């Protein structure tokens, strides 16, 4: 076992180094960061408006309910009794919370959902060459004469890509915070980090893993790109579920504006759905990994 662990560590180290030197890891992370920045610039900041100002807080724990607004005319923040128009626009789940922050957080969720699709597409294409590259460089024959098991080989390839992605994405997530805050204002940091942890990272693991495993048997880089393209429907299929996971609670809550679902409940429901979707997608990917490993064993040495 210690030998396999040492081999895995070695593979992660040198596969990462090679990915860095051939710029594929850098391109992936830059692409993600630029995607985030472009989506951020194109997304409008839409304040929750009421007549004469931006609604910052609606408090219905007092009677009568009050609304805190920043007046467009003077910029002054003022609290006044909420009229029927305000109460109709601001459903129960948006009351008694910081509306500016909730608004920015929901914007962030929308944006990161779109970026997830971009990430899935890119990784399906970029990761497919991981194993065919060994054939391209003609080192696969040498590698198969070494005492490295098939599971260790596949595991090493996958883990190297995932560790690289994890490092790059953590960097992206941190560097993006000031950009997002500048554009949307303060947002719920915990929800933001959870979006990365529950949606983007698992999506990256899924897309890269699926692509690496599906292209494991092909002999050329060109064929691996074609495999990546062929996997697009699977990527889009999973993305549709991500969209449903993110927006179903939102839409449901908006339609049931007067139900008692809270903002926290909404966010938790959203994360629950995304987590479930990603878990299923990644389990399917791991199942493919088992199939690839099994087929490899059957074909080994024939």
């Amino acid at each position: 076992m210690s030998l396999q662990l040492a081999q895995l560590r070695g593979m992660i180290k040198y596969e990462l180094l090679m990915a860095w030197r051939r710029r594929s890891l850098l391109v992936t992370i830059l692409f993600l960061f630029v995607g985030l920045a472009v989506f951020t610039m194109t997304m409008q900041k839409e304040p929750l408006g009421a007549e004469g100002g931006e609604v910052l807080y609606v408090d219905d724990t007092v009677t009568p309910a009050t609304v805190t607004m920043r007046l467009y005319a003077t910029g002054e923040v003022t609290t006044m009794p909420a009229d029927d128009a305000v109460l109709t626009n601001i459903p129960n789940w948006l009351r008694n919370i910081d509306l500016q922050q909730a608004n920015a957080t929901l914007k962030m969720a929308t944006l990161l959902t779109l970026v997830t699709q971009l990430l899935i597409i890119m990784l399906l294409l970029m990761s497919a060459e991981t194993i065919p590259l060994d054939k391209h460089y003609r080192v696969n024959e040498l590698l198969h004469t070494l005492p490295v098991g098939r599971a260790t080989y596949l595991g090493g390839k996958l883990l190297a890509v995932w560790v690289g992605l994890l490092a790059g994405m953590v960097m992206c997530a941190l560097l993006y915070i000031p950009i997002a805050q500048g554009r949307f204002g303060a947002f719920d940091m915990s929800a933001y980090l959870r979006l990365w942890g529950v949606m983007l990272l698992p999506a990256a693991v899924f897309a890269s893993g699926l692509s690496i495993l599906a292209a494991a048997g092909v002999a050329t880089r060109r064929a691996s790109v074609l495999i990546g393209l062929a996997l697009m429907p699977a990527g889009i299929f999973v993305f549709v579920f991500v969209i449903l996971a993110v927006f179903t609670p939102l839409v449901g809550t908006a339609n049931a504006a007067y139900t008692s679902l809270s903002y926290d409940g909404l966010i938790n429901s959203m994360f629950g759905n995304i987590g479930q979707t990603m878990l299923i997608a990644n389990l399917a990917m791991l199942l493919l990994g088992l199939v690839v490993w099994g087929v490899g064993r059957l074909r080994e040495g024939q």
Partner: protein
Amino acid sequence: MIEITNLTKTYRGGVKALNGLTLDIGMGMFGLVGPNGAGKTTFMRILAGLLRPTTGQVIAFGHDMNTAHGRMAAKANLGYLPQELGLYPNLNALEFLDYMAILKGVTDGGERKRQIHDLLEKVRLTDVAKRRLKTYSGGMKRRIGIAQALLGNPRLLIVDEPTSGLDPEERVRFRNLLADMALERTIILSTHIVEDISQSCNDLAVMRAGQVIFRGAPGDLIERARGHVWTITSSGERPNGGLTLVSTLQMANGVQYRVVGDPPPEYRAVPNEPSLEDGYMWLMQDTVSAAEREGIGV
């Protein structure tokens, strides 16, 4: 010790690459020669654990290579230099050797460093060890190939056409390096270049059509050709009549042909001292003739 018993390999489509091959290979340098399609590469790939035989058995250092566990154990004792060696172009020699050493199971960092340092010295690549491998010449790549094959101090070293593409100086150096290595391990050297065998092997096998048609010392193969190697000088047409032409030399008085076979008296052939190459050519000619006499296609 490598024991090979009744090995056959039939590829999909019915091509029979090995046909009941049986061999024992001990310590030292073992040469494997034969024409294209003789089954040498298939045999080497089976020994390296890259292919599984259709039938038969390979026992390498007591490990049965027909089992997954046996193959893995045999691979732990194996160094392999394929004919077409690929390298990771974005790594330098130190990094590549370190990576290969880890995969070979040299897990101790200090030991890895020591081995890499020694091997780079041996293959004379210390000065360029930090250069990316994509900048290496063909000869340097072969040398890094032999260095990686020797990592982990393997008991069996398989080298397939190691000197092809090398200049004469590199070839001699490479042969000497292999000969040094053969003192403490088994080296199986497969080649088309008979001179490589004659200069370095004390034991050899000649393969043809998936079978071993000769097994013995180079001297024995040379002896087989004694009395069948001739020089014919002619200003006219090239000698024929079942003779195998080994070399042609333009001289002032005509063309001098070195031939293997039994030339008719009118050629006024002069007998020659046989070389290993002559022995090989005679064996091939003799095998084909015997097969033709028996009506077997070879």
